[in-house]
């Protein structure tokens, strides 16, 4: 395996130093790194002065395969992830068929390994077919080759309190976590956007904040009662933040996630009637955006998950009400965090490493991701140039779908290189294809 020398990179944005990657590990960091490099090591002088971070870990990705290949495949989705600086993703269970048994999660694992862009960790469904009625075969998935630790019916809420309780209890036997999509289904029947001033004016059916908050409140109480781990997916309201803050103060074992789009965009965008801005949970108000930014900065919210939700073009090129919920996010997550958190001074690069890499890896119980930048650690790293500003153009992204809400926006930061277990998956901002790699399936939808 070729060694790679990264001269003058800045770990966590701090002082410049040389880093040697060899045999899949960070072999040396410091002025002696170059001296230790083998003669045939690749020198990456273009990375000098850029920020080195642990490879990003997405706790919340929709790869759509099996069943949704017209929107995304494991190959195209993980390639987009690598371009976004990721080295591991958790692939949500709402595929067709659903990832609710060992066979399907092992299939997704295999597709991920064949693609080779990032480590793929399938999420297991909480309930059979994500129907919310019977527990899925959680134990079989946990003990399969995929070693599933994160379980979620995401897309749906586990709304039955008894089923939620049983799921929380059951995963304790293999240190799993329930990742809840918090949405009271009755309070959100027919909902199209955040319920408030804008929905009242537009006449679009509202998705009230309380439909999220009431489920989170119930779930933290359940998790506290049974002593289990709860992860709250894509929290979106100021009220939800307050509940998480309260639960943590009580010692309840809960982690919370926010998406990049909920850190930046508001429900005012619904005035365009472009389904590009239609997402679940919906874009909220400016006050909510402010609250989730503060909560991410102060640690109340633990991680950023992309909720990367690709859709085929026809699902978004239509009336708002007919449009699908969801936005792509893998390639823009880091730029959004730079724009919303780093540039305004709310977070340092160490905080970025924490919320985009270390904590998501810990929630998912990954041993070799989200590790510190230290000698001997696995070489899952990403190098970003925060000084570059780029206009988002969906046609030049690597995901198969074009439903980014940031189209036309100028965002800071570009991932120049990503290394997965010591091997470059991205160089000069472009994915690096390998001869041994399975190629992208040729058929296009």
């Amino acid at each position, binding site marked *: 395996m070729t060694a790679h020398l990264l001269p003058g990179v800045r770990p966590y944005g701090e002082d410049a130093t040389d880093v040697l990657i060899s045999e899949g590990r960070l072999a040396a960091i410091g002025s002696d790194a170059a001296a230790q490099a083998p003669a045939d090591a690749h020198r990456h002088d273009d990375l000098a002065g850029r920020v080195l971070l642990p490879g990003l870990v997405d706790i919340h990705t929709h790869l759509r395969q099996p069943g949704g290949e017209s929107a995304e495949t494991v190959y195209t989705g993980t390639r987009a992830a690598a371009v976004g600086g990721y080295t591991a993703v958790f692939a949500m269970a709402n595929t067709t068929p659903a990832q609710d048994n060992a066979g399907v999660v092992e299939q997704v694992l295999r597709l991920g390994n064949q693609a080779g862009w990032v480590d793929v960790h399938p999420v297991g469904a909480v309930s059979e077919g994500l129907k919310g009625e019977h527990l899925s075969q959680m134990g079989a998935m946990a003990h399969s080759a995929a070693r599933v630790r994160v379980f979620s019916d995401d897309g749906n809420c586990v709304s039955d309190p008894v089923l939620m309780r049983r799921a929380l209890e059951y995963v304790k036997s293999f240190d799993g976590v329930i990742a809840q999509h918090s949405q009271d289904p009755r309070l959100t029947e027919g909902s199209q956007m955040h319920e408030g001033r804008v929905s*009242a004016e537009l006449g*679009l059916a*509202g998705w009230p904040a309380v439909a999220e908050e009431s489920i989170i409140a119930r779930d933290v109480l359940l998790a506290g009662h049974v002593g289990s781990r709860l992860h709250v997916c894509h929290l979106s309201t100021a009220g939800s933040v307050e509940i998480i803050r309260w639960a943590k103060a009580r010692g309840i074992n809960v982690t919370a996630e926010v998406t990049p789009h909920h850190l930046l965009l508001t429900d005012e965008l619904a005035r365009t009637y472009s389904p590009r801005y239609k997402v679940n949970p919906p874009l909220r108000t400016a006050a909510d955006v402010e609250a989730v930014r503060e909560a991410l900065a102060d640690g109340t919210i633990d991680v950023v998950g992309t909720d990367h939700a690709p859709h085929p073009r026809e699902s978004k090129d239509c009336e708002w009400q007919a449009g699908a919920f969801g936005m792509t996010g893998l390639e823009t997550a880091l730029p959004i965090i730079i724009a919303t958190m780093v540039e305004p001074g709310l977070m340092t690069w160490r905080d970025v490493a924490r919320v985009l890499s270390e904590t998501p890896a810990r929630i998912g119980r990954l041993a070799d991701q989200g590790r510190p930048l230290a000698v001997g650690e696995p070489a899952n790293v990403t190098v970003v140039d925060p000084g570059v500003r780029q206009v988002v153009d969906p046609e030049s992204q690597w995901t198969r779908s074009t439903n980014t809400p940031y189209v036309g926006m100028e965002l800071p930061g570009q991932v120049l290189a990503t290394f997965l277990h010591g091997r470059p998956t991205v160089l000069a901002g472009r994915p690096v294809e390998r001869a041994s790699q399975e190629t992208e399936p040729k058929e296009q939808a």
Partner: protein
Amino acid sequence: MKHLLSAKDLSHDEAVMVLDTAEAMAATQRHAVKKLPTLRGKTVVNLFFEDSTRTRLSFEAAAKRLSADVINFSAKGSSVSKGETLKDTAQTIMAMGADAVVVRHSACGAAHLLAHAGWIDVPVLNAGDGTHQHPTQALLDAMTLRRWYAPGGPASGSARAADGAPAPQGRDLEGARVIIVGDVLHSRVARSNVDLLTTLGARVTLVAPPTLLPVGMDDWPCEVSYDFDAAIAAVEPDAVMMLRVQRERMSAAGGGFFPSPEEYSRGYGLGAVRRTAMPEHAIVMHPGPMNRGLEITADAADDPRSRVVEQVGNGVSVRMAALYLLLADEGNQL
């Protein structure tokens, strides 16, 4: 005007101008030969994704009286179920040489999308989009009210009431008091009227049970009351506008917006007693079709101060005005 998508888009002066133009159109309709040559050679497409024979006929009559060719395209049932229907249909219609599109759709924002998505490049007239807007309905209501409301009339102590004759050019609705009653939550008529009537200077009070009022309307330029009788007493309205209540909204398990039709009628229906409590000159309006016995009793609907039939006639004049303002060439002005 490039499009007519929302009553909110109209400035005070634009709204008055449309109403003045509608009166001019109405005047021509009293002649033996009703047809004007104004839009000869133009093609107006009525693109109806939702059934509404009344509205379609009104637009069709308006276009034909201006000598436009009319293509009626109804795409019933295909509206929201299939993603690309709106775009595909719009482009098909452009290929037929449309000069303007009148669109009715069950999805909020459908007209906005047609006007701005880049699919077509002709004026778009919103004939009702979901629960959002129905600007020509608000204009015809304003036209009706403008004929029956006399500034400084009975509400302010003088004895004079308007007689329904064409309003003088340039007149707005300054000082008029209007109560709008019923399902505001799902009503494009209510949204459009709050915008337009207040732009024209009227004072609007919405009356509904809290379940039928949208969350987030705190900054709307109107008063809100849950009590119809108290509102009549407090406001002394010049007009009461009853909204149509969809029967399917009544009592779906757990999702019903009110307990029973009887309770709704008692609280929010217009009958003889409330009609009597209103000022004598106050008119009754309804966008139709009426649910007699639910939001309005037969005697209130047929009361001499009911202007429901007149609203329909004014609808044609207002739509003529809108099409004229959107489509007429420079050399072919009135």
